């Protein structure tokens, strides 16, 4: 097991290096010149060149990438070696000349929002999806199963932007459960749990709905499939009670694959939930990258958010694989 984890850790590190270089390479290919964009109206070729140097774009992609990697571990100074030089400490994700801030600071500002949204939604959809799925499987063909089927249909067919708008319309504007002026205000969940719930419950529920529906379906079919396995009949032949069979034997096998998709879905959302953040006015990673791409073309921010998003996926992949190996002994090699 230890050997397996070590090997996977090594692979993950290599993969992250490849991913980060690919991101640099892709943005180098895009024919938008950030040096030109931040140039004022009286732009001269000399100014563009100076900007390019300031942004660190006057060297090869490989060099840019290498400086970035170094910056991640050692921190990095941005500027021309003059008075205005700015030092961003490790881990430095770059410097936004547009916002005059270290990118790591900007991300650290918005990340709690994204984390709150993701964890809240994750807990909601996992608990609702799995318990509803198990219930539907146990009551196959009965009322509970049919009702959960309706929920699945509604949940999967409603896009998040519709659910979100409906929630805002009814919960906020009609029933005044949340003050529209407070919508999107960041609250610390530890010092102000009620305020945090007020801000995040409805966005989380909106985001969770679609996921909960697919997880219900997935859990239901998995539990049904495992229930007909020979080893469940063996468990019954031993004299175990139905409760123990379900909780120990069936769920262990039925939920293992759910760990995989749940981990990846979670990681995907950590990169930002653009639509949900937009509807509820939350400033998370999604909104940050959307703004950086559409409005300011803030390359350091774009690169950093893309990289952070993919790093979450890669790292979560590792965690999922290790967790799966723990759950399923056949995978440990």
């Amino acid at each position: 097991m230890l050997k397996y984890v070590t090997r996977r850790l090594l692979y993950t590190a290599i993969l992250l290096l490849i991913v980060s270089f690919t991101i640099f390479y892709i943005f180098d290919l895009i024919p938008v010149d950030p040096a030109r964009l931040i140039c004022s109206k009286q732009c001269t070729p000399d100014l563009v060149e100076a900007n390019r140097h300031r942004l660190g774009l006057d060297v090869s992609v490989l060099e840019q990438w290498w400086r970035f990697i170094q910056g991640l571990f050692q921190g990095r100074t941005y500027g021309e070696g003059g008075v205005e030089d700015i030092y961003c400490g490790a881990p430095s994700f770059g410097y936004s000349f547009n916002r005059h801030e270290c990118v790591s600071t900007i991300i650290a500002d918005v990340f709690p929002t994204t984390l709150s949204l993701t964890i809240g939604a994750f807990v909601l959809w996992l608990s609702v999806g799995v318990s509803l799925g198990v219930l539907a499987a146990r009551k196959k063909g009965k009322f509970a199963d049919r009702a959960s089927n309706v929920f699945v249909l509604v949940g999967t067919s409603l896009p998040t932007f519709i659910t979100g708008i409906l929630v805002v319309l009814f919960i906020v504007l009609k029933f005044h459960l949340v003050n529209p002026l407070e919508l999107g205000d960041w609250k610390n969940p530890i010092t102000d749990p009620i305020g945090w719930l007020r801000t995040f419950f409805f966005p989380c529920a909106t985001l969770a709905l679609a996921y909960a529906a697919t997880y219900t379906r997935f859990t239901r079919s998995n539990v049904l499939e495992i229930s007909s396995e020979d080893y469940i009949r063996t468990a019954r032949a031993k004299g175990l009670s139905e409760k123990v069979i379900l909780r120990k034997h069936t769920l262990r096998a039925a939920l293992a694959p759910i760990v995989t998709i749940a981990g990846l879905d979670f990681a995907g959302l950590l990169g930002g939930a653009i639509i949900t953040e937009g509807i509820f006015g939350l400033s998370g990673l999604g909104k940050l990258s959307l703004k950086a791409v559409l409005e300011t073309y803030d390359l350091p921010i774009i690169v950093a958010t893309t990289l952070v998003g993919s790093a979450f996926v890669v790292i979560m992949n590792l965690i999922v694989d290790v967790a799966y190996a723990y759950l399923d002994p056949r995978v440990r090699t």
Partner: protein
Amino acid sequence: MTKFLEVKNLSVSFPTEDGLVKASNDVSYSVDLGKTLAIVGESGSGKSVSNLAIMGLHNRATTQISGSAFLNLDESPIDVISAPEETVRRLRGKVMSMIFQDPMSALHPYFSVGNQIAEAWSLYNEGSKRDGMKRATEMLDLVGIPSAADRVKDFPHQFSGGMRQRVMIAMALVNNPKLLIADEPTTALDVTVQSQILKLIQEIQKEFNMAVILITHDLGVVAEVADNVCVMYGGKIVETSAIDEIFYRSQHPYTTALLESIPRVDQFGSHRLKAISGQPPSLIGLPKGCSFAPRCQFVSHVSGNRCTTEDPELTEKAKDHFARCFLSTEQIHSLTGRNVKA
């Protein structure tokens, strides 16, 4: 004299989209402690179903069931067919155990074999997890798994098919049950392993004085281990007797045909095996008359189309030898040439 397990007029059927499947039809048999009853038949002859019902492993919601199956326990006999679900569950793994055809899929892939055996043990015994694992090691040793102490923490996928079946046997026997139902325990294994497993079951049966029901389609297996045989066809018992009677003086054309389809090492030359023509009947809406009639080569020897209009009763043809056929003993023996002096 009462035997340990007495099954009487057990019928099991379940509705499907195509109609009612009469999987087991008015089946009666019995088996005593220390004895082995073999139930023989083709796939779909209903040989597993009645035993699953005895174990209470049938789907209670959909299965229609009638008849009785008494376990004559020391305290008092229990009819496991009419007993409440919870009572039957408490007998499973303790008084009666079952092993299955495919040891590859019958063990939970996520738990170590020791864990699975210990789980069965701890259901009916007080003791710590460590006691359970100790008991599991003893059992693995008993069923002949080499260096059991090292392997007790291994997972099913680390064992070969034969070894997994040994693990299944260890698990089934961990609480010293009085009845072991083995549902085609050797079908998924290769031939050399088959005989090892059969020997193991026999040895353990002697040691613990168990009643064994062996469900199989392999008459070779039957010859090796059984004391009594039930031959099933179309959900009914067509012939039942002691082992020698069946092999040397079979009274039913189906049994005879089965025996003739077995390759024998003592017959050399260009001797061809005889296959039974046709297909086994569907258990939905069985035809009138004898279920075997469409495939029976002796139908013309019974007068007046009786075979296709009337279902023969299970009648005693010789002492303790019952068969479901209109032909008399003399007729069938002259037709098949089977009355070998044992």
